[in-house]
C-alpha cells in the first residue's frame, strides 16, 4: 500500500506539467486546439492562401492585447503592416526584422531574440521561401531553437510551406483553404467577403481539425459591391492597351 502511494507520488513529481497555451482569439480554433503552447516550437504550414498568416496575425493580436511584446522574423519580406494593424496588432509592441530572403540570417536573428527573452511570441516567417531552400536548415539548428525556447514563457511559431522543425516542434498545424465567400452574383460586381480555413493538427497525432473564418478588411471604405467603375469597360480598356 505504502509502496503504491510512494510510486504515485514519484510519478506525479516527475510528470511534466502541461504547457501553458496561448489562445488565438478565434473561437473555432481555441475551442478545438486551445491555442499554441508556450516554451515550445509550433509549425504552421500549408500552401499559399491557406490561412497560415491569418492565424499568425490572430495569435500576435491576442498577445499584444495582453500587453506582451511580439517579434516577427520575416525571411520572405512578406509582412504587411496594414494587414497586421487591421488584425488588431499593436504595432508599437511588434518588432519586425526583415532578412530579405536570407533564411540563415532569419535563424540567427530568431536565436538572438530567444536568448534575449522577454517576448511573448516570436514568429519566423519562411512562408515564401522555396521548400528546397528551407529544407537546407539543419535539424541541429531547430534543436538549438527548441532548447532556447524551452522553459521560457515565449512561444516560437514557424510559418512555412512544408513542416521543417519536424521532431523539434511540439505542435504542427496544417492549414488549408476550405471556402471563399464572394458577395454578388458571378458576372456582375462582386466583393471578396471572407475565406474559411481549416487547421488540422498533425503533431501530436491526436486527430483534431479546427475551422475558422477570416474576413476581408473592408474598413477602408472605398471597396464595396458597387464598384465605382464598370468592370467590363475597365478590363476591356486595359486589355486594349
Amino acid at each position: 500500500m505504502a509502496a503504491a502511494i510512494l510510486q504515485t507520488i514519484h510519478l506525479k513529481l516527475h510528470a511534466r506539467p502541461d504547457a501553458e497555451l496561448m489562445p488565438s482569439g478565434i473561437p473555432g480554433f481555441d475551442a478545438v486546439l486551445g491555442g499554441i503552447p508556450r516554451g515550445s516550437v509550433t509549425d504552421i504550414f500549408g500552401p499559399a492562401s491557406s490561412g497560415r498568416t491569418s492565424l499568425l496575425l490572430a495569435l500576435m493580436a491576442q498577445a499584444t492585447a495582453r500587453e506582451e511584446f511580439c517579434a516577427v522574423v520575416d525571411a520572405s519580406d512578406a509582412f504587411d503592416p496594414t494587414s497586421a494593424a487591421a488584425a488588431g496588432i499593436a504595432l508599437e509592441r511588434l518588432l519586425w526584422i526583415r532578412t530579405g530572403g536570407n533564411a540563415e540570417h532569419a535563424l540567427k536573428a530568431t536565436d538572438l531574440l530567444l536568448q534575449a527573452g522577454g517576448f511573448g511570441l516570436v514568429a519566423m516567417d519562411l512562408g515564401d521561401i522555396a521548400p528546397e531552400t528551407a529544407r537546407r536548415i539543419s535539424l541541429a539548428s531547430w534543436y538549438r531553437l527548441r532548447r532556447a525556447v524551452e522553459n521560457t514563457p515565449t512561444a516560437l511559431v514557424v510559418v512555412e510551406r512544408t513542416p521543417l522543425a519536424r521532431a523539434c516542434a511540439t505542435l504542427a498545424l496544417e492549414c488549408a483553404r476550405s471556402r471563399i465567400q464572394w458577395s454578388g452574383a458571378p458576372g456582375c460586381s462582386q466583393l471578396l467577403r471572407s475565406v474559411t480555413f481549416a487547421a488540422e493538427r498533425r503533431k501530436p497525432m491526436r486527430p483534431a481539425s479546427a475551422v475558422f473564418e477570416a474576413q476581408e478588411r473592408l474598413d477602408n471604405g472605398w471597396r464595396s459591391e458597387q464598384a465605382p467603375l464598370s468592370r467590363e469597360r475597365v478590363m476591356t480598356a486595359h486589355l486594349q492597351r
Partner: protein
Amino acid sequence: MFACMHASGAGARPLACAQDFSLQVEPTDADTVILDIDGLGNLFGTVHEIAHAIARRAGFPVNIAIASNPDAAFHAARGFTGISILPQGDEAKFLASLPLTLLSPAEEIEETLARWGIRTFRDLDALPDLGVAARLGEEGVRLQKLACGESSRRLRPVEAPPRFEETMELEYPVDLLEPLMFVLGRLLGDVCARLEERALAAIELRLCLQLENAGEHARAIRLPVPMRSARVFLKLLELDLEKHPPAAPIVRVTLAAEPAKPRVTQNGLFIPLAPEPEKLELTLARIAAVVGEGNMGSPELLDTHLPGAFRMRSFGTSRQWAGKSAGPATLAFRVFRQPLAAKVQGSFVSAPGVRGKIVRQAGPWRTSGDWWTLSAWARDEWDVELSDGGLYRIYCDANTGRWFIEGSYD
C-alpha cells in the same frame, strides 16, 4: 586656515582663480569667495607666500585675507585693501576698526545699535554678552561673535558640475579593434564608477577617436533607457565600431557619457512579460549587425492612401502603449515587396512563380493619389482567385498600363 578673495566687479574670475588653488571653494557673494588653504603650505610655504601666490595668479586687483575661520577672513577681505593676515587668537583686535555695516545687520538692529552709538566691531565686542542677548536676542549674539572674529561654521563648498568624460593618449597608434576595446573597457569602467558614485546612469555615449592623420572619428550611441552597465556599453561600442570602423589608426580616445537619472521600475507578479531594456538593446545591435540597421524596428503606418505605405521606427519597450484590443480574425495579406510584373491575357494571369486561370474575381477599384507631386500614382485593382489555388490581389498601373501582382491573401 581660510583665505578670502574680494574683488568688486570681477565677475566669475575670483571663483575660477580660487578653484585653481583648492577644491573647497565657497562663493559667498557675487564678488567674494572663500577657500580652504589647509595643506597649501607644503606647496607655497607660509601664509604670506600663499596670499601672494593667489594675488599673482589672480592678475587683477583683489583683496585677500587669511584667517582661522571663514567669517573673519570674509570681513577682513571686505574691510581692508590688499593682503591681510589675521593672527590666530587676535582676530578681534584686527577687525576692531571695521564699520558695523559690514556685518549686514537687520534694519531694526542696525537702528538700535546706531541709537546706542555702536558703530564699529570694537564697540559691539565691548558690550556685555548677557545684555546683548537680553535686548537683541539670538541675532544680536551672532553679530557680536562675528564682530570679535569668532565663528565655528563650516565652509559650504560649491561643487563643480560633474563631467563623465575620460581621455587616454595612446603610446602608439592602434589599428585593431581588440586592443582598442581593451582601452575602451578601462575608460568605461572609470566613467561607470563615477556615474555610480552619484547614483546616475547614462542616456548617451559619445566616443571621439583622434586619428593618426589628424582627423577625428566621432560616434554617438543614444540609449533607449538610462543604463550603467560597462559590459553592455562595451559590447554596443564594439558592434558600432565594427559597422563604422575609423579610417586611420587611433592615437587618442575620448569617451563621454551624458548622465541621466536611472530608470525606476516597479516589478510585480502580474506585470506582462517584456524584454529587459539592457539585454534588448544589445540584442538589437547584434541583429542589426546581421540584417542591417534599416531592416528592423516597429512598423508605423503612414497617413496616406498609398497601399502598403509605412516607415520603420526604432523598437523600444518604454514607449507608451496605445491600448488596443484584438478583434475578429481578418484575412491577412502577404506582400510581394517588389510587385511581380504579370501578364494578363484574357482570363489567364502569369507572373514569376504564379500562373493560373482566373476562376473568380472582384473589382475593379480605382485609386490614385499624390497627383500634385512628381510621384503620382493611379491603379485599378482586382481580387482574383486563380486555378492554382491562390487568392491574389492584382492591379494595373493606370500610368504605365502594366499589370502587377501585389501579393496574396493568406
